[in-house]
Structures are given as C-alpha cells and as structure tokens.
C-alpha cells in the first residue's frame, strides 16, 4: 500500500508496477481526481482533505491495508514516513513498513539522540549540547561553544523551533520562543544547542542498507539552494567543488554510521560542509524528495531497492558496482509565489505542458485541468536534467524549464531559471545563504 499522495505516490506506484507488485492507493476527498488514485490497482478514500483526518489517519490507513490484503506499506516522505509509532503499528498488524526498524526511526527522529549516536560512531558533528533544561544552562553552553549558536527543537524540522542567537543577552527571549514554537509545532518543547556554522553548504549522502548488514553509499547531493524557510529548491549530484578528500570522508562516515546503528532500507545523512570541515546534522530515515538526481547519476532505482530490501532480499548492488556517471540537477516546481515569500497557491491548473526529450525526467501528479488543493505541500512537479557534465546538465535544465507551461497558479519555474543564470550557481560556488541573498538583491532592485 502507498500511504502518501502527489508525485511520490506515483513514484512508488511506478516502482511497484515495474516489479509486478499490485498497489493500493489511499486518498483524501480532495484528491479524488489525482493521478495517484487513477494509476494504482485499487484506491481507498481514507478521509477528508485536511491532513490529520486523511493522510495522517493511522487507523483508516492501517484498516485499508488490512481490508485490501496488503503485505507492506510504503510511507513515501513526509506524513507518516518518520513516525516510529506508525512503523510499530504496521508491525503489530503484520504489515511490512518499508523503511528502517522503528527503534532506528525513533533514535534518528530525536535530533539530540541522533547526534549522540553519530558521535559514538565516530561521525563528526557540530559542536553542541544535549537537551537544555533552562536559559541559564543554554547561556553557559553558548559561552563554551562560542557565539553565534543555534537553538533547535529536538523533534524539529522545516525550521520550526529554530532560533539563531548571536549574543548572550538574546538568549532568554530566543529560548522562550524556540521552546514555545517547538511545543506548538511538535508537542515537544525540548531544545538543544549547536554552533552556528555561517553559510555552510548543505550536502547529504544517500545510503541503502539491507537486513544482512550490507550498507552502500550512493554519492552525495548538494542541496544548498534553499528558500529563506530552509526548504530546498534545487538539488544536484555530485556536489560541485567538493574535494575528493571531503567526499571520501563523507561517504565513509555515512556507511560507518549506518552500520553502527544497524540501518536498513534507504536513508540520508545530512551534513553541513564549510571548507574542508564536515558536520553531521541529521539523518532522514526515508526516501527524499531529491532522490532522482542520485538515481540518474548512479543508474539505480532507489524505490525499487527499498521495496526489495523490505521484502528481505539482499541489496541489488555492491559498492563496487556503482559508478558515478555524468551530472544531474533537480528543480522543484512549486505552486508558490516567489515574489510573495513563496506563499503557497491553490487552484485549478489550466494548460500544463511538461518538458521531454533526452536526459529529462519529470515526476509529477498534475495535468491540464488538475486541482491543486490548499491542504498539502505546494510541490506540483520535479524536473530532473541529466548531462555528461555539470554545464550540459544546466543547459538541459534551462531548456526544460523554458518548455514547461503551468497556467493557473504562480510557480517557481521562473525563479529556478533566475537561479540557474547566476554566476554563483554556474560556478557551483553557492552556500545555503545564496538564495536568501539573491532574493534580497532582487527585491531591492525591484524597489
């Protein structure tokens, strides 16, 4: 069963169809006309539009899997993908959760625990603390680590419950608002502290593990083009200007860490990279939005591997089988208004035309006439371009974006083209501060 919606539900359905696995889709009342409903072998409505009543409705999702006789549940990303309790409930009902063991999800889901575990495995982590009990403890810790520091929610994600603290006198207020926001967002107000690495690159490593203790890494992805909200917009593999030494260190650390925790299935270790310094940030125990760039340069099918590994098969590849070839870039096409702080857009799409031709992959659930409901993530398509070189991949992405037509809502297409045209991006010399700086410049120029 596919416990998700949108493009990732289609992605999973594709892998299943190619493996000859029958699929059951779940959908909300708002998604009745969505492609993932049409393309699955069976489809069950599990609730109304709002996420808590449908895509997070564990009883209805489990019940659907049971009444349709499913063997396994693929959670995609978001929603229930990193919910250890959901993974446990699956197991309780004899359903295979396609992901790592619940205990591993739980350990990695708690960021402070994850850091400690990684430290034990010999992985470099950002200087920082365990969970903090008070603003005073925070102040003392910051003194040791050195300002600026970052307060982060241990249950966090998407920048929620995160505060930059540059001076001791800001700590009291920052601590209060970070814990309050974390409590409101995750029902878990606990926060910890990390040294703030100024304008690092966000580089992540894709890993795959099976139940026989085999773990392989599938290179890295540079995801430093992020909106001010820290959401990724453009990703690429391999990361430009990453020294061979830094790359080797990253990949080796990732594999070592996974073996240490007994990691199975697909996962991603996110690192901050500043010069030759590499700091483990967090691990995502699921498939990522940006997995296709890895698939293109390594000629693998990560979702098929997830399904195979979950079925108890050994990995289909050994490390030595994997040969990096060419360069791949992904642009996220979101129904958002980049000129208005990327405000999400809902509505009915008029004409929709996606690009084609050589080296272009499109993962999308929308089509001419499709509805974009207001309840969900604003991403409506991913366009991935492959090229023999980074330059060729950029040129191909530019022509692919120019071919793309999405009428009816504002999108990030033009914003992506603007980013691709900048000298920083073309040179591959950008960090996570790049897009916010570019947006500030553009806004200033327009005033």
């Amino acid at each position, binding site marked *: 069963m596919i416990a998700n919606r949108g493009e990732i539900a289609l992605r999973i359905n594709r892998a299943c169809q190619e493996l000859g696995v029958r699929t059951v889709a779940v959908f909300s009342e708002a998604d009745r006309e969505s492609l993932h409903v049409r393309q699955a072998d069976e489809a*069950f*409505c599990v609730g109304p539009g709002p996420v808590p009543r449908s895509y997070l409705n564990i009883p*209805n999702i*489990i*019940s659907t899997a049971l*009444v349709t006789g499913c063997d396994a549940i693929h959670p995609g990303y978001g929603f229930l993908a990193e919910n250890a309790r959901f993974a446990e409930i699956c197991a309780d009902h004899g359903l295979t959760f396609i992901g790592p063991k619940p205990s591993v999800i739980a350990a990695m889901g708690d960021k402070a625990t994850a850091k400690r575990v990684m430290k034990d495995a010999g992985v470099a982590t950002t200087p920082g603390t365990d969970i903090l009990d008070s603003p005073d403890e925070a102040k003392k810790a910051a003194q040791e680590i050195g300002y600026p520091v970052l307060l982060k929610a241990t249950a966090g994600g998407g920048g929620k419950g995160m505060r930059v603290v540059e001076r001791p006198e800001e700590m009291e207020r920052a601590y209060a608002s970070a814990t309050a926001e974390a409590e409101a967002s995750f029902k878990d107000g606990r926060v910890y502290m990390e040294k703030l690495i100024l304008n690092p690159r966000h580089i992540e490593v894709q890993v795959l593990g099976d139940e026989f203790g085999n773990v392989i890494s599938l290179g890295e992805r540079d995801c430093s083009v992020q909106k001010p909200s820290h959401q990724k917009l453009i990703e690429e593999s391999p990361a430009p200007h990453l020294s061979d030494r830094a790359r080797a260190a990253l990949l080796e650390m990732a594999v070592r860490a996974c073996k240490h925790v007994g990691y199975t299935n697909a996962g991603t270790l996110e690192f901050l990279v500043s010069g030759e310094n590499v700091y483990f940030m967090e691990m995502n125990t699921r498939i990522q939005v940006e997995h296709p760039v890895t698939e293109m340069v390594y000629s693998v099918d990560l979702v098929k591997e997830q399904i195979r590994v979950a079925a108890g098969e050994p990995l289909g590849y050994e490390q030595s089988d994997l040969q990096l070839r060419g360069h791949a870039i992904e642009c996220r096409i979101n129904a958002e208004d980049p000129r208005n702080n990327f405000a999400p857009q809902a509505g009915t799409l008029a004409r929709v035309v996606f690009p084609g031709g050589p080296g272009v992959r499109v993962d999308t659930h929308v089509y001419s006439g499709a509805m974009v409901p207001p309840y969900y993530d604003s991403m409506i398509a991913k366009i991935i371009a492959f090229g023999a070189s980074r330059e060729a991949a950029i040129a191909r992405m530019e022509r692919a974006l120019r071919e793309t037509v999405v009428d009816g809502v504002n999108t990030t297409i033009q914003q992506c083209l603007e980013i691709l045209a900048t000298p920083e991006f073309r040179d591959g010399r950008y960090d996570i501060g790049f897009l916010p700086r570019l947006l500030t410049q553009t806004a200033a120029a327009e005033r």
Partner: protein
Amino acid sequence: MSDEHQPSPISNRVRRLAAFFVETDLLRLRIERDGDEIELGRQVLHRDPLPEFPADLIDEPAPVRLDTIKADLVGVFRLARPAMAEGDLLESDRELAFVEALGIRNPVRSLGPGRIVTIACHDGDPVEYGQVLFEIDRG
C-alpha cells in the same frame, strides 16, 4: 503576423437592436454576422395568466426525503443481526450494521425512523471513508 480589425461601434448597434427586441414577444434573439455575435434575452413575461401549473408535477416521483448513511471510517461492512432488508420500516433509531476496523465493531445507526430504500453494500464488503452504506426514506 496578425489581422488587425477595426472595432465596430457596437454599442450603438446594440442599443437599436434592443429597442427592436422589446417590441417583439421573443425571448431570445441572436444575430451572427461575420465574426460578431449579438444575443439578447429576457425573463419570461406572461401577458396572459398561465394555465394552472400541475402542483404535483415537479414533485414527481412522489417526494422521498432520502438520507444517506455513509461510512466514517475504513473497514469491513457487516449487517447487524437480525439483518434488515430493503423496504424495511424503522420505528426509531437503531443499529443497522457495523464497520469492523482493526478488530473494533463501529456501529452504523439509522439516526432516526424511516424506511430502508437501499442497502448499498454487501455483508463483508470493504468500505472506504465516505462510502454510502444505506439510503433511508424519512417520509
């Protein structure tokens, strides 16, 4: 690369057409000429009293106030025992069936009296959220 048309002075034309139109008993008048199209219409005006409108006409067939009882969760549909049949009268609110989900029997009630018009599922069917289970005539 494009034909440029002179816009016609359409407002004057429409004004004159409208004057003509109100003198007629036409309900709709539509003139097409070349690319232009004018359509005029009005509400029905009855000069003579209408023949009496048969009162039951638009209420045909005899009005049933149909309530649908839908599943509010996903599970397996089971008729309550003793099982009801289509056409059965319900004196008051009662349990018609239940939806079995994760080992729990979630009752489906008639929510008042009425006549069962349709039992939309068979015993043992998997049902999705929002699926119609019963249609009940509230009379």
